[in-house]
């Protein structure tokens, strides 16, 4: 019973955080693009005279979309049309369950893992959720009975499937290095340091090439610029062309959720998750020998903050990329996926394997 309550509480915290983050994300995106483009960005919505740098615009957006007329076009498959956005959001949210966002918290006797669902093969679970998410897009494209939507759906399908492979292979090396598929373990494993304690042994250090592949493929997974072909506005408007109101809002939300998801994954896999450099459960162990003991609650707090910060930083980076680059063309995208990322990822795995064989602990 208590376990269930704790789980519920954890789930509450995670989803509250994630959804808010997604909401905030729309604001951040607007403001960030505004800063990049020498603009001001939304700043006029006010409640009782307060504008909070335009934060309320996101609330207005959400409120409005909830009350917007919902149109199902004639000729569309009503059930699938309604199901598609829910699919998208559901699986995007489900994936968050496996992400550990902080070190284990010790409350009295209990040790609470800061992770909604502790799954042994969490990585597989997350990837599975991400892959299933594509069905939302496909269904949306198919159910809309609109040529543009179909094109968008087709592009999304091909793109996601192609990049999933690179994505999957890119983390194989990581698994080989850390020898676990449990994300919690993976993060903990990244707590080690190398080079005499100077460098934390994060995924980025262990697998730099994999990181680049992962980020690229993950960006493609999330359909963000420069990989926003399924919704390439100036070409085909997007798979959600026939969606209005909150259904469209859900796709909108999914977009941001997936971005956060990918940021969280990248953090977890390559940037040590909630790890803070030189911070061990007992306290800081600086490479120059200094030590600073830290209480467990502070350790957990620092961990959660570190995780959040890293996720936000990735989100920022993704958006910065979005506002910098032009879009790929379909065949270039495929070429990049199959002829670029995929072989490199494979080679990376092989090289990792060889290196591990030569220098690994097991050898």
């Amino acid at each position, binding site marked *: 019973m208590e376990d269930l309550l704790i789980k519920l509480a954890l789930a509450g915290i995670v989803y509250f955080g994630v959804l808010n983050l997604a909401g905030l994300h729309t604001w951040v995106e*607007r403001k960030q693009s*505004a800063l990049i483009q*020498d603009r001001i960005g939304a700043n006029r919505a006010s409640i009782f005279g307060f504008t909070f740098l335009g934060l*309320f615009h996101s609330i*207005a957006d959400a409120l409005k979309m909830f*009350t917007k*007329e919902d149109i199902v076009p004639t000729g569309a498959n009503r059930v699938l049309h309604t199901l598609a956005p829910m699919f998208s959001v559901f699986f995007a949210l489900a994936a968050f369950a496996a992400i550990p966002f902080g070190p284990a918290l010790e409350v009295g006797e209990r040790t609470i893992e800061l992770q909604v669902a502790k799954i042994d093969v969490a990585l597989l679970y997350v990837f599975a959720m991400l892959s299933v998410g594509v069905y939302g897009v496909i269904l949306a494209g198919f159910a809309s009975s609109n040529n543009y939507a179909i094109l968008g759906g087709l592009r999304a399908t091909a793109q996601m499937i192609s990049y999933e492979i690179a994505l999957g292979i890119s983390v194989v090396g990581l698994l080989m290095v850390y020898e676990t598929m449990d994300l919690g373990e993976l993060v903990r494993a990244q707590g080690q340091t190398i080079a005499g304690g100077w460098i934390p042994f994060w995924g980025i250090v262990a697998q730099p090439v994999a990181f680049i592949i992962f980020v690229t493929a993950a960006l493609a997974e999330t359909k963000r610029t420069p990989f926003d072909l399924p919704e390439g506005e100036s070409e085909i408007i997007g798979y959600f062309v026939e969606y*209005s109101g909150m259904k469209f809002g859900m796709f909108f939300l999914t977009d941001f959720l997936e971005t956060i998801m990918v940021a969280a994954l990248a953090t977890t896999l390559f940037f040590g998750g909630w790890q803070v450099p030189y911070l061990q459960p007992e306290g800081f162990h600086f490479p120059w020998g200094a030590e600073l003991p830290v209480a467990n609650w502070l350790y957990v707090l620092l961990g959660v903050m570190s995780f959040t910060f890293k996720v936000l930083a990735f989100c920022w980076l993704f958006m910065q990329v979005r506002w910098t680059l032009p879009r790929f063309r379909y065949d270039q995208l495929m070429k990049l996926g199959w002829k670029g990322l995929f072989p490199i990822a494979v080679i990376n795995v092989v090289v990792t394997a060889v290196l591990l064989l030569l220098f690994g602990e097991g050898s």
Partner: protein
Amino acid sequence: MTEKSFLTTKLDEALGWARKFSIFQYPFVTACCGMEYMATACSHYDVDRFGAGFPRFSPRQADVLFVVGTISHKMAPVLKRIHDQMAEPKWVIAFGVCTCTGGFYDNYATVKGIDTILPVDVYIPGCPPRPEMVLDGLMKLQDKIATEHRTGERPAPEPRPDILEV
């Protein structure tokens, strides 16, 4: 005023507030006015400040139809169809004199003001209107949206020419 109606009124007002500051526009750009539309949307005037920064190129997702530029007889059916495709609640802004009244293109090819085929909420005259005029029109639209929710009804339709059959 009963408790309930007070609540619904408040809710309605909140909704009005939300709609006022979340304007997804469908820019139906055809002509010269598009240049000033760009200027309005870009850094110097930044229409995003008003919450109208997202141009949605699907009418389903748009709240406000910006009709920017001359509408010809050849184009009119397309415009009408897009207006029909938009989801409620929706508003229409006539941007530039060609859309307001037909402007000085009084000839066989042009429609004499889009209000002959659609209901128009705000007219922004000018050829093309300066971005300031556009922002002013946008604020007038925001006022209208808020008023609509405060008073509970859309302001009475403004007098306009008979709608032509399309």
